[in-house]
């Protein structure tokens, strides 16, 4: 979903740039509460994994592919503020070194994938976690559903930006239908990858999964004598 330079006009790109600056600044403050000696290296790994995951385009039919956006994945593993920074660093490296996503479009891409992707992903995850049974096995499922919703959400916001500042005069409804249609399918891939990765980490180190912490508190007290040698 990396927006290249030129799709959106300068005022829109400036506006999304401002939104991105405000969002990243807020995340720099918020992430301090999520990061400590133990979780900071894990968060670095999460960003690294999102970058690698974004390289794995999977086919979704009709000559189209999709790839992990990673917002929901990073939010569940590292916490929402840290996740905004994870995805933003990935987008920065891609824009500056790999020409994946435009440089003037960096603000747009941060807005779409870091702010909308993480924000929607985290909100849906919290909602699902509240609704699903209070068990660790609910965490990957909630993460997968959050990931699924986050992709069409980002696609819808892109369409909104395109309607406001798209350089080409194309009917918004046409773009919206196409964007939502494809990104619902891509969202399924996002859900599967996110569910599997979160499920693997929950299986080996549930204590390192930010989104699982509220479910662990009681459990740890129960089993502590068995784990400590």
């Amino acid at each position: 979903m990396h927006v290249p330079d030129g799709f959106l006009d300068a005022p829109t790109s400036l506006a999304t740039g401002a939104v991105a600056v405000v969002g990243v600044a807020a995340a720099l403050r918020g992430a301090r509460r999520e990061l400590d000696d133990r979780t900071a290296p894990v968060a670095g790994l999460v960003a690294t994994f999102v970058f690698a995951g974004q390289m794995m385009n999977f086919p979704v039919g009709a000559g189209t592919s999709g790839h992990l956006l990673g917002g929901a994945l990073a939010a569940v593993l590292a916490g929402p503020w840290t996740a905004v920074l994870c995805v933003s660093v990935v987008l920065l490296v891609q824009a500056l070194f790999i020409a994946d996503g435009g440089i003037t479009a960096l603000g747009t891409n941060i807005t779409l994938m870091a702010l909308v992707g993480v924000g929607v992903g985290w909100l849906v995850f919290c909602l699902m976690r509240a609704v699903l049974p209070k068990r660790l096995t609910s965490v990957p499922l909630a993460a997968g559903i959050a990931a699924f919703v986050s992709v069409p959400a980002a696609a819808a916001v892109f369409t909104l930006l395109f309607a406001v500042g798209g350089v080409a005069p194309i009917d918004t409804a046409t773009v919206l239908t196409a964007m939502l249609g494809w990104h619902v399918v891509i969202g399924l891939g996002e859900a599967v990858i996110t569910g599997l990765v979160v499920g693997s980490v929950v299986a080996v180190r549930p204590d390192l999964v930010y989104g699982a912490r509220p479910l662990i508190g009681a459990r740890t007290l129960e089993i502590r004598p068995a784990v400590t040698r």
Partner: protein
Amino acid sequence: MTGRRRTRGFLAVGLLAALLVAGVGSFYASSHPDGLEYVAGKTGFLDTQDESAASDSPLADYQTKGVGDARLSGGIAGVSGTLAVLAIAGGLFWVLRRRDDEPAEES
């Protein structure tokens, strides 16, 4: 201490997985346009795209400049990008982190 060592093992396995995906797995990734690119082509705004100022970068488009072998070229680019993200994000989070002797409620 056991906990810390186990975390180190977890980090090592995770990093290895990321490097393998970026350095080796990515060769097998679909080369079809992604959702946005495809929609842009279909609905007719793909040609409003401008070339990125970074398109001359030695790692542009996940290929390493001057390396002919496609597998190696993509692999080096993937691993380089992965390590760049690790350095920037890891460094940033290490600076931002709450120190152990700092009370959690502060800030």
